[in-house]
């Protein structure tokens, strides 16, 4: 049997999904599958209360061949995380009403089911203490807005190596 990992995918097996194991030469790659046996394409969840920034980051990620689900709040992101089978990354704005990106990061890292998902924080303000706090809490990276294609290249390359 051959492995079919999608370009830009970060395959992450999760305990709540049936995973099919396939081999190619010496590599063993876990490709999550749904209940019907079809592979579930990995997706990125983009979180931002600004519709402009949601549109921009979605376009940048789709250019890197990711499937993207964009939501406008941390609360909505957590709802999606409960049902989306193969999330390869969360990219979230820092400053949002009700639940900040930092709050979302903490909830993800406190969850046994979600903690392995890389979280990237975006912010329009360069506040060193904010950046440090997020990285210490387990954020994968911290991007200053407006996000550039080179920023997305950097983080998606890192995701491939996970």
């Amino acid at each position, binding site marked *: 049997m051959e492995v079919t990992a999608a370009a830009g995918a970060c395959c992450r097996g999760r305990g709540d999904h049936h995973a099919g194991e396939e081999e190619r030469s010496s590599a063993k790659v876990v490709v999550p599958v749904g209940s019907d046996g079809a592979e579930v394409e990995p997706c990125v969840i983009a979180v931002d209360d600004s519709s402009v920034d949601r*549109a*921009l980051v979605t376009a*940048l990620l789709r250019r890197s061949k990711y499937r993207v689900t964009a939501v406008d709040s941390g609360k909505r992101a957590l709802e999606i995380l409960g049902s989306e089978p193969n999330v390869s990354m969360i990219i979230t704005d820092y400053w949002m009403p009700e639940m900040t990106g930092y709050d979302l990061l903490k909830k993800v890292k406190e969850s046994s089911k979600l903690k392995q998902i890389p979280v990237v924080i975006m912010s329009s303000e360069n506040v060193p203490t904010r950046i440090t706090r997020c990285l210490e809490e387990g954020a994968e990276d911290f991007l200053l807005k407006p996000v550039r294609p080179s920023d997305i290249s950097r983080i998606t390359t890192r995701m491939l190596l996970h």
Partner: protein
Amino acid sequence: MRNLRLNSDSRRAARGDRAGALIRTGRILSRLGYLDEQFCQVEDLQDEASPNFAEEVATLFFKDSARLISNVEQALEKYPKDFNRWDAYMQQLKGSCSSIGASRMKSECMSFRDYCGQGNVEGCMRSFHKVKREHGALRQKLEAYFQLLRQAGPAGAATRPGM
């Protein structure tokens, strides 16, 4: 045959005029500082799947920014001298301006925030008035730019001026 050639020449001339107008408009927007390099980044995200992406983002921006300006206006009225609140609302608008490359508007947002930091009510009011003025001017100019783009068609899009 001569008439057909003339019609073809006329059409080519008209396309050339529209493309020229498009280039001139784009350069004006850039030279006058209305838009910066970030707008080029937005336009670069256009492709066959999203041929009107820049215009769609601009539409989102003006919808968002109108709401944010209204928030600031209401805060100025309802919460006198609440500089922290005023600043927080203006920060959101400034972020939106940055994302689309609205440099002149962003600059006025930053002035407003500076005046908030100084506790200067009059300065805040003056700069807020300028924010609204720049918002209106940018909307007008971008509407004209996108209209030219639509008229120029795919050929015009291919020769879109670099800002």
